[in-house]
């Protein structure tokens, strides 16, 4: 499975990459919105971990740029919980919302992977 991790915070990105890497996925990363778009177009990931608040293009903006997609699952991550419920998440074009800070990094990854399992 191709996984794309997008987050401007290095430590967060690294921890996600490490865990995903251990599970035999092809892991790609981007540290900002523009980079994410480029990589996305190139590799066509199956699962994307997308941070909302980033310098430059924000997570939702990236999704808008990407536009219609068929098989990629998107997990939006943010510290601001109140603004996002199932409805808004879907309307933004994402599939799941996970709140920061992560209590347990492993469960986060599991949640992401279960999205893809549904296929």
């Amino acid at each position, binding site marked *: 499975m191709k996984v794309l991790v997008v987050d401007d915070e290095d*430590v967060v990105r690294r921890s996600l990459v490490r*865990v995903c890497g251990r599970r035999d996925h092809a892991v790609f990363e981007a540290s900002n919105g523009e980079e994410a778009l480029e990589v996305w177009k190139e590799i066509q990931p199956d699962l994307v971990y997308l941070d909302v608040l980033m310098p430059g293009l924000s997570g939702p903006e990236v999704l808008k740029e990407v536009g219609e997609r068929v098989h990629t699952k998107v997990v939006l991550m943010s510290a601001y919980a109140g603004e996002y419920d199932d409805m808004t998440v879907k309307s933004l074009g994402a599939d799941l919302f996970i709140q920061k800070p992560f209590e347990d*990094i492993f469960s986060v990854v599991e949640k992401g992977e279960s999205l893809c399992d549904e296929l």
Partner: protein
Amino acid sequence: MGEVETDQLEVLWVGEASNAYDLSQLAKETQKTDRQSALTILDSRSVAVVVVSVASSDEASEIGEFLTTVSNLWPNITRLVFVGNSLPVDHAQQLIQSLVNSVGVHFLFREGKSMNHLVDIIERAVDGFNTRKEQNRIHQEVKLQNARLEEMTDGLELMVAERTRYLSLSKSQVEGKISGMRGLIQFIKNLSSLSEIEDLYLLLRQDIKSFHQVQNVYLGYLSSDQIPRIMYFQSREVRVRSAQKMWDQSLRIRVNQVEDSQYLANEFSRPFAKVIGIPILIKTNGAVESIEPRCESVIYFEHTFQSEDEEIFLNYIGERLQPLGLTFDRIQLDRQVKTASLMWEKTFDGVKDPIAILDRDHQLMRNNQSFGWESDSSICFKKFNNLDHPCVGCPVPSVFESSKAQVGNVKKGSRMFEVHSYPIQLVSGSRPSNVVNYYVDVTLKQELQGKMIQNEKMAAIGHLAGNIAHELNNPLTGIRSLCQVLISEVEAGSNRYDDLCEVEKAAGRCQGIITNLLDFSKETGAKHLESISLNEIVTKTLPFLKVAMRNHNCRVELSKQEPFVRAEPQLLQQVVFNIVNNACQSMRDPGTLTVETDIFEKEGKQFSRLKVSDTGVGISKENLKSIFDPFFTTKSVGQGTGLGLSMSKNIIESVDGAILVNSEVGEGTCFFVELPFRIGGST
């Protein structure tokens, strides 16, 4: 008296002269004559000496008679007797003797003596006459002077008597005048102490009591509502009635005028005899010249005087007119001033905000009722605030310094006043002599302001905190997550494993604190009551107080059964924070802070309770009653607003709770927060 001065004849020889003597040699002028003619001559001329010649004794008695006549008529003339030789000696002797005895002959000589001898005698006789004449003259003169003196003395006596009479008359007049003056002075003195028209009337009546012919006194005057009234005495009391018509406006004193009697007759429905009418208060409206002067007060005396007594009475009253008029005027003015003064006072007291007028030394000139009665003192800060020094924030000194209005904030008890102080000049001079203070109760306004500021601060802090929290969240997430990854790759039980676990736990704790902070600083918006447990509040809040707690021991005993309440969690956190913070600040290191929660029952209802006790300095009995007052603080300016406990109390009471406190100075304090136990269901 009344001798006609003709030429002086020295000698008049009466009778016969002997041929032996040359009569012309006798004296400057000698005339010889007989007795018959002698008297005539003596009558017409001034003669010094009369010589009577005796020729025979037959003539003796006639001579005697003649000499007596001469002596009587012209006592000054020297009488001489010449005895001729024709007379026998013894006859002559006899004759001489009798003459000398009866008549008083000055000289006597006989014929036979020499001429010189005779001349000599004549000379002496003439001298004698002159001497006598002179003596007589002097005597007359003296008599005259005496008579004049007597006249003068009589005259003087008369004058003295007159003067004495006059003086005693004057004295009694003067005494009369003096006693009259005394009476007048006493009258004026009495007038000066009057304050009512009735008293003036009675005084006047009393004063003229001695004039029995005055039957009654009628005092007409304008009352304060400009209605003419007449004051009179009847049945032993003073009465007043409204006049149907205004009295004669003449400004003269009228004696026995029919119009006056008729006027009173109309007013009192009975006949009036003689009446004296005296105007005593004449008002000229000084500003308007065209208006006639008005007689605003008049006195009528009904009397039975005869004309002389009338005169006396009029004089008497005349002296008293001016003082009466003045007193009347004064009474009216007093009344006006009183009314105006009353109106002002009522207005002044009617204002619900305190007003005071002071001088430079904070002495109260005046204050209204709302100013308060903390004490009877006349010093502003003592009366308003029961202080012995000017209130903190008093703007009065700066008003005097700057001569401009100033505003200051002064606390009275639990209320805050905005004091507006305005300079005024009650005494002429270049600088304000006094200030008027107007106190506006801004307690509520300041409380709200304070709350607003507090809220804004909290909001700002919240905002700041929120930002920081989010900034921190990101790396922390990463740190924790990476730690978890590492832990999964390291051999359990090894040192590295244990180290990584500690790091991960620490990162987790950081996340917790940040979450707490984010919760706390969330904006409240509308009142959002939730069912929340006091335990949770305590657990969430205490971490914030780590710094405040320093070296103190902290014991936390939370009730096993969750003490639920319905409140806004953030506000509750504020309350707990405030109380615990106060407790920590009251303790010198190291003290013991105890935080407990429990549930108890009172009057059939259940309550959740939080108890915070410390071993600090305690709160004195006096301060205990004030600690929940807004702005009350024992901290110095800048250290605290004094709003913490007051706001806490408001928050708790707004959800039907109560804050209670026990304290002992030197031992510690214990705060209780009691809230109705409520579980489940949020808005």
